[in-house]
């Protein structure tokens, strides 16, 4: 999550993605970097043990939120 914030601060549009089990940590990291309320995406846990079709499905599901944070439309 910190990487997303650091990229944004360098002027590079970025969206941080984590799984829902890391949401609390991600929010704490954003606060530590002086960016409380930083918008990021949390997807259902787990990721590491998914098969490719499940991963693709998850990515497609998350795309709308990614674009919303970038404030662009499909």
């Amino acid at each position: 999550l910190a990487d997303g914030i650091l990229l944004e601060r360098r002027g590079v549009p970025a969206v941080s993605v984590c799984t829902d089990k890391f949401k609390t940590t991600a929010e704490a990291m954003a606060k530590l970097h002086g960016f409380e309320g930083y918008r990021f995406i949390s997807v259902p846990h787990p990721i590491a043990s998914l098969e490719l079709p499940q991963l693709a499905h998850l990515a497609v599901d998350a795309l709308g939120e990614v674009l919303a944070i970038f404030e662009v439309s499909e």
Partner: protein
Amino acid sequence: VTSDTTTGDTTVSDTMIDHRQVRRAIEYYYEHGFTDGLPVVPPTESYLAEFLAQVDRSPDEVVAAMPHLNRECTLRLAAINSIMAGCLPEYFPVVLAMLDALRLDAGARGATRFSSGLWQSTTGTVPITVINGPARLRLGFNCQGNIFGPGFRPNATIGRAMRLIAMNALGLKPHVLDQSTQTNPAKYTCCIAENEEESPWEPLSAEAGYGPGASTVSFMMMRSCMHIEARSATRAEHVLNDFANSVARTGVLYSEKSSCLIVVSPEHAQLLASHGWSKKDVREYVAANAVCTREALERAGKTGISRDMHWLVPSDHPDALPGEEPQFERRDGTEVHPVLSSPDDVVLVVAGAANAGVSTVIDLMGASTAPSGRGGGRLPAMSEIVLKPSP
């Protein structure tokens, strides 16, 4: 402080205090989330001054930092947490040397993901420190029986100081910035001393070029801790193969290569030395024989290598690099993967009681290549302890 309920007089006494005040002080630290779950010693300014007087360094010096968390620990904060952990003032130079070694370790690892991720990882990596030299005896460190267990104040409280500094000064609280899935019990405290008196070999500090008058702290990051039973071994190879097989078990492998600290009991060390084995010989044997068969890795789904992180994954995993696999070599008709890159991936320390043939294999997270390796080889990050002269 005691109050006389009949006269209303309040008196201060060294021997009598009001238990409610003690309880209130202890609870204050729980209420503010400043403990590891066990009670802490409430620090006071006067007691803090005793700690600061043990070192000739500025209280404002930054002694530990987590730049990615915007957190720093000053020497004063380290002293406050050392008090809370139950340290005596004379232990404080050891705590500082431990933090100096931590900085060397983080620096030697280089990449920020190692210096940061190690403390927050789901693996639950924990520091293990080893004390060498005369400070062990002067401060009363345990280096014999129950080496990883309770009952010895320097071991227990100096290791605990490290954890309280991590939690309170660097903000690494569980369920928030510390994301470890399970970790291991050593996270409360893990500081051992080498049993130099019953070791047939040179101590760890001597390997780094320190003389017998020097006291040192060596700093490593532990992933797991495994007890080795080899009570009836009659040959050096019996013990060494038990070590090697334990280092190479599939469950502990997250990437192609591993590294380890072997805490050798005096009985095992003496058996090995009596058969002519030096520390160097032992490291070389373990490095050469810590191998995993292809079949064992296949059965555990660890014959693929992931992109970016290079973790072991099933070869048909979506993140597996096509055609990539751990390095195998053929030995006696069987394909095996050596899990250690070199003998430098084995650190040896002798500790425990000389009462049984049991030792411990500790799996480390990577190996630092700290500049403490004065002898030429790679060794854990190491710092010298500077104690005030005895009164």
